Structure formats: structure tokens, C-alpha cells
């Protein structure tokens, strides 16, 4: 019997240590695992390095984790969004470090980390300030930048349906970074709106295979950043 379910988001993130690197899925609010992030705030780990595409909006989810002072460094492609003030304020105050990475390079570095590829040469960012200090090399006369794989201690992602083996389906553009992040962490935690027995999902349609997933938490009605923000919510 294989059953990766854990009873709660709280239990799922209980062993995140201070200083851990945590990948967090989502593009804007789509795919943001808010309940897992809130459980991580409750849990208290600090000095975290967060790898995510954005930095959250309002005072909930990713923005709330930053606001709680738990994040030392962000590896990110787009840390400002309409409605994001927490990260910009912390950044201007010098209270959080930023490693800015082009979105496609971020995705590819995470995929590489999960796929055992140490590094790769990409044409993206060649000749720009984001290639400063990086090794470059010409292939077929075109400059490429050497980029290294990224790995994390934990990945937190949101799925639509997961099974007891950890196979996951996503919802539309909420898929975004989750499939790569699932592969690149020592411990991958999925919150899913629906949890089913192994054998329920179509083997042809599984997006993230169970081998990449360690813990499955059932979160039947996940909150959305926009709805929480419209309601003026803040966490905790």
C-alpha cells in the first residue's frame, strides 16, 4: 500500500527548517498554494530562500510570508505586480535579497535541477545585465549563457486532483511552474482540491507523476489571492 496523504497542511510543512530553500508554485494567483503557504507562516521557519515566479499581492499568501519576515532571499522573474507592495518595500529597505532570473530560464533551471542536468547554455539574456558575471560561450556563432540547475529542500504546489500515489492534474493556467518544481525538491508537497484513490486518473493524462510527490494534502476549497484581497484579508 502506498498512500501519500497527510492529515493537514500543518502536518505537511512541519519539518521545514530555518534556512531552507522552498519552491512555491504559481503565476500570479493561478496555482498559488495559499493554504500551504499560510501553514508555513504558522510553522515559523525563517531565513528561507523562496523560488517562485512572483512575490504575491496584498497581505496574504506569498506576500504574507514575506511580510512575516521569514524570507531571506527570493529567486524570481517578476517580483512586482499590480497590487504588490510587500516585496517592493522590503527590497527597497534592503531586507530581502533578490536573484532576478528570466522566466524561461527560471523554468529551465528548475527543470534541470529535477532532471539531473547540472547546467545548460541558453541564448536568453545574452548581452544583457542579467548575464553579467556569467560564463558565456558561442554556439553556431551565437552567444549563450551558462545557467545552473536549481534544487530546493521543499516544493509547495497546488493541484486540482491528486491520487494517493501522488499523481497530480492541474487546473488550466494554474499548472505553470508546478510540474517542474515537483521534480526539483527533496520533499514535494501538493495541496489538491480533490484527492482520489490510485487507479482513478487516466494514465495518459497524468501531468505530474507520483514519483515526484511526497505528501498530498486535501484542501477542498482553496482560497484565491484576489478574493482574499478584495475582502481585505491579511494573514495571519
Amino acid at each position, binding site marked *: 500500500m502506498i498512500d501519500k496523504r497527510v492529515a493537514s497542511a500543518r502536518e505537511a510543512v512541519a519539518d521545514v527548517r530555518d534556512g531552507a530553500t522552498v519552491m512555491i508554485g504559481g503565476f*500570479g494567483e*493561478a496555482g498559488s498554494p495559499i493554504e500551504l503557504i499560510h501553514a508555513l507562516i504558522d510553522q515559523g521557519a525563517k531565513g528561507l530562500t523562496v523560488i517562485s515566479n512572483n512575490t504575491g499581492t496584498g497581505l496574504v499568501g506569498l506576500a504574507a510570508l514575506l511580510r512575516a519576515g521569514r524570507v531571506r532571499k527570493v529567486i524570481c522573474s*517578476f517580483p512586482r505586480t499590480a497590487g504588490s507592495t510587500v516585496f517592493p518595500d522590503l527590497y*527597497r529597505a534592503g531586507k530581502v535579497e533578490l536573484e532576478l532570473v528570466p522566466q*524561461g530560464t527560471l523554468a529551465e533551471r528548475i527543470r534541470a535541477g529535477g532532471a539531473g542536468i547540472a547546467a545548460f547554455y541558453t541564448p536568453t539574456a545574452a548581452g544583457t*545585465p542579467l548575464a553579467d558575471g556569467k560564463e558565456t560561450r558561442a554556439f553556431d556563432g551565437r552567444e549563450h549563457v551558462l545557467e545552473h540547475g536549481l534544487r530546493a529542500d521543499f516544493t509547495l504546489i497546488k493541484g486540482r486532483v491528486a491520487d494517493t500515489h501522488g499523481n497530480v492534474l492541474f487546473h*488550466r*493556467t494554474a*499548472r*505553470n511552474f508546478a510540474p517542474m518544481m515537483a521534480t526539483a525538491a527533496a520533499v514535494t508537497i501538493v495541496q489538491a482540491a480533490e484527492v482520489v484513490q490510485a487507479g482513478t486518473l487516466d494514465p495518459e493524462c497524468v501531468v505530474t507523476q507520483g514519483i515526484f510527490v511526497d505528501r498530498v494534502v486535501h484542501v477542498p476549497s482553496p482560497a484565491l489571492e484576489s478574493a482574499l484581497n478584495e475582502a481585505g484579508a491579511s494573514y495571519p
Partner: protein
Amino acid sequence: MSAASTGRTESTLGWTREGIAERVAQDIPNGSYVNLGIGIPELVARYVPAGRTLVYHTENGLLGMGPSPAAGQGDPELINAGKRRVSMMPGAAFFDQATSFAMIRGGHLDLSVLGALQVAANGDLANWSTGADDAIPAVGGAMDLVAGVKRVFVMTTHVTKEGAPKLVERCTYPLTGRGVVTRVYSDLAVIDVTPKGFKLVELAPGVAFDFVQERTGAPILRPTPRTGA
């Protein structure tokens, strides 16, 4: 809409931004796979000539993106790269970010239409940062798009609000990519980036060549006269 469809307004010389969008749309062949940058470039989708089908890619993971639903409608997890709710067209597909940027970086998209802070005569583009000290740096997929997409069209006002040229000899803002711009569509003209620098393709109605050249930070070659039949 009527102002847009004439491509002009009475108060301003040259094309309106809708007029630019309409002009861009004319140059996109049927069946093209297109990524429209956040903001003004999104207008292009409204002006695609009848009988052409374009497939829109949004880098957050959807091919076959359709128009935005009415305000308050739609799915908060069916969004575009500008984080606005969108819809999907028949033949659409969802995929992860690695696949999405494989499409971009691997040269599978036919066209990207982007905004610009500056475009240089050698095709360099600056459109992600003014380099200001207090700015929060954010790049998103811009560098991937210009590095990978087959043709990069820039849609922009010809000059800044302060009247400074946006088409320049060399970019002074941090680059998005080197030698990446194919063609510029401004309110005043359509201008190609060629190995010899900027080259006029077409002037907006009522705009004179010298008027454009005066507002451009690098020489513009005149179009090659068409010969014979």
C-alpha cells in the same frame, strides 16, 4: 472604434495606438503562432483581418488563448501573462512553463509583438527596466521572447512623453536582447531594422519622412524603390 478603423484621430498626427495595432495586424499571416506582449500589443488581436486565424500563445501556459471575458466573469486561474482573465479557443492546450518556454526559446513562435523603451538601429531592444535606482527589477518572459521568437515586432510611440526619440543609435537603458527587433510600428511610421540600420517601410497617413527622421535618434534609410512590374 471608428477612430481606430480610420487609423487616425483628428487631434494627433499619425496613427492612434489602435491604428498602430490595426497596421501590425495586417502583417501577420494566417495560421501564425503569436505572442502579444502585455498592454498595448494586446490590441492587435482586435484587428486581425477577416479570414485569418492566429493562434495566441501566453507564456504562462496556454496556446489558443481567446478574448477576455466581461469584468467579473471568467476563471481566476485561466489568465494571460498580464494576469488578466482570458478564454480559450478551439484547439487550445495547457502546458507547464518548461514547455511554454521551449516553444519560445526553440523558435516555434512566428511572432512576438512587444512594447519598447528604446530600439537601437542595430536591433537592440530595451523594454524591461529604466535602470532607475529605486526601481524593483522585474523581467518576466521578455528576454526569452526576444531571444527565441522568429520575428519581433515592436509597437511604440515614436518618442517619449518628453519628446525624446525611442528609436536610437544605441540603447542607454539596460538591454532586453541584442539585435533582436525585426520591425518597429510607431504612431508615425513602420520601420524595418536592417543590417544597415533603420529603413522606412511606410509612413503614417499625412506624416512626412523628414518629420519622422527629426524625431529619430539614428538615420533612417528610405525604402528601396520598387522596380519593374
